């Protein structure tokens, strides 16, 4: 069957993030972050690349806002992701959906050359009580809930891919419901809950990069 592509190709694709000229706000963030970047040349170069890609992604996506970016010790950024995020203040209460999530993005220098566990990259700072199978329950052990993107992510995975995977996970576009699957399951109760409530999946069908 032939299909016709009705949407126009985006002006800038995800593969050309480094060619995106940064606007004044992102450029100044970039300049500030660059000053603190340290470590071996190869590591520094890669962190700078990932930092710039994140800023460019924020600029073209229309749904990502960077609060701050720090390259002092690996990459660390506080970002706001506009996406429907399910949460439950009380596990027996109703499911609520927030329109955005505040995320702590971590890209340790070791991630460049070592496969790190899938929970090493994203912490959900807001909302509290995110109710997803691959997000650790809001408990005394995890107040900033780690999001698990798999047992291990490949060494040198681009941060852009991590952000896309995060969007897919939070919005249930990529669902993980198997309670027996050790790859990324952090909240079995949430997995069972979503197995019973599949009618609400996915929470959005919007692509990551918003169409103009």
């Amino acid at each position, binding site marked *: 069957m032939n299909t016709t592509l009705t949407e126009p190709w985006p002006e800038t694709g995800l593969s050309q993030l480094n060619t995106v000229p940064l606007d004044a706000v992102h450029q100044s963030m970039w300049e500030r972050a660059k000053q603190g970047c*340290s470590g*071996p040349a190869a*590591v520094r170069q890669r962190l700078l690349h990932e930092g710039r890609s994140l800023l460019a992604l924020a600029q073209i996506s229309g749904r990502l806002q960077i609060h701050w970016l720090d390259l002092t*010790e690996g990459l660390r950024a506080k970002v706001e992701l506009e996406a429907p995020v399910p949460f439950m203040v009380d596990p027996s209460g109703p499911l609520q959906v927030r329109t955005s999530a505040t995320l*702590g993005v*971590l890209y340790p220098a070791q991630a460049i*050359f*070592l496969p790190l566990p899938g929970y090493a990259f994203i912490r959900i*700072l807001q909302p509290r009580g995110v109710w997803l199978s691959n997000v650790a329950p809001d408990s*005394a052990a995890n107040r900033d809930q780690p999001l698990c993107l798999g047992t291990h992510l490949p060494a040198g995975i681009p941060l852009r891919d991590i952000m896309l995977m995060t969007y897919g996970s939070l919005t249930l576009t990529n669902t993980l419901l198997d309670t027996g699957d050790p790859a990324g399951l952090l909240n079995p109760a949430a997995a069972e809950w979503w197995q019973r409530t599949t009618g609400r999946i996915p929470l959005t069908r919007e692509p990551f990069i918003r169409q103009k």
Partner: protein
Amino acid sequence: MTTEQRAVREIYPSRGRASSSFELPPTLPLLRCSSEARAKLNAIKVAVIGCGSIGSRIATHLARAGVAGLLLCDPKKFKNSSVATHEVTSAQVGKFKAVVTARRCKAISPHTRVLEFSGPVEELPLSVLADVDLVVMAPDLLSAEVLVAQRCLWLGKPLLQASVHGATLTVQIRFFLNAGATGPCPACAYSRAEWELLGREVRFSCDGFTAEGAARPRETTPTNSLSALCSMAADFATLQVVRHVVEAGKPVGDTMVEYGGFTHRIISSPLVRSAGCLLDHTSFRQVRVGERLLNLSPSELARRAFGAVTPTTSFEVPGAGYVEFAACACATLLPVGKFVQRGRVQRTSCRRCSAPVVPLGFYTHGLASAALLGEAIDRPLKQLGVARAPGVVVRQSDAAALVTEEAFRP
């Protein structure tokens, strides 16, 4: 095993042995080295990381050479199969490798100060490693190899790496001088395949059995080594150490010696630095202070190390993280501004919700910059939550220093 038990311990002579009866064996005069050179060997302190079939033999060789100090590190115990490749009997099965080897070394050379650490090398304090003159490593994990290589680069410690490949009867001894930022390190020679093996945490074990006490399943690649091959690697390694210390023959620094058992050929080749190496080749300056570190503030430490605090100054207390914010059940961001020992259970509870106040992972920093510390930079470390600090790493631009107490003795 708890963190408490994983301490560096000194081994003392067994009762009934008169330490004063020990005399240096007459090995060294055969080298025709001067008494000064011999004194150098008697004064050297060596760390041996990995007390398996190669490392334990190197340790006993060095004890026989009468070195001043030995620090032996290995987290594992002897298994039944160890008898095939290690110098142990079945009576030692189930005992910690580092402890057994340390006791043997102490029995051979009571004058040698022998320390053992039966924990993973990751937990060996940097300041303890800073106290040795040379590091020998023969671990079975690439991650341990990389970690030791990184620490030796930082501390500027010469590093000898001994390994074997059983199937090809090959012995490989690599000696890294770590004399400056331009020298090579083990990771400089890593290919993509080695990084991939490192990522998979492949263990290179003599027998290939599942490692005891491994935190999670790891792949194990048997090296199929013969006891004699491991012994030969240890012999070659010790000779390289002695040649380096007494400066006998051509310098061994930044060279690799390879012995092929099928051809009996020995090849010596230079080791070179890779510009794309992912390890940090910065050498730490070592700064000793007369006072207790806990009484000094981060700004004072920076002044002692670099003369002043600049915007690029940052601090690292090994084993601790600087917690910027914590959270409880009712509050999302509670300012903390203190160093917290990693793995320590927090006993502070929120007055309102009575839930424990937990450091937030995202806001816990291994490296605390001057900007992050803010005014706290002028407060003594003990007021910033540091309970014990054998050493503090101070970084500034591309330079770094390890600050320790003058009186520090592992």
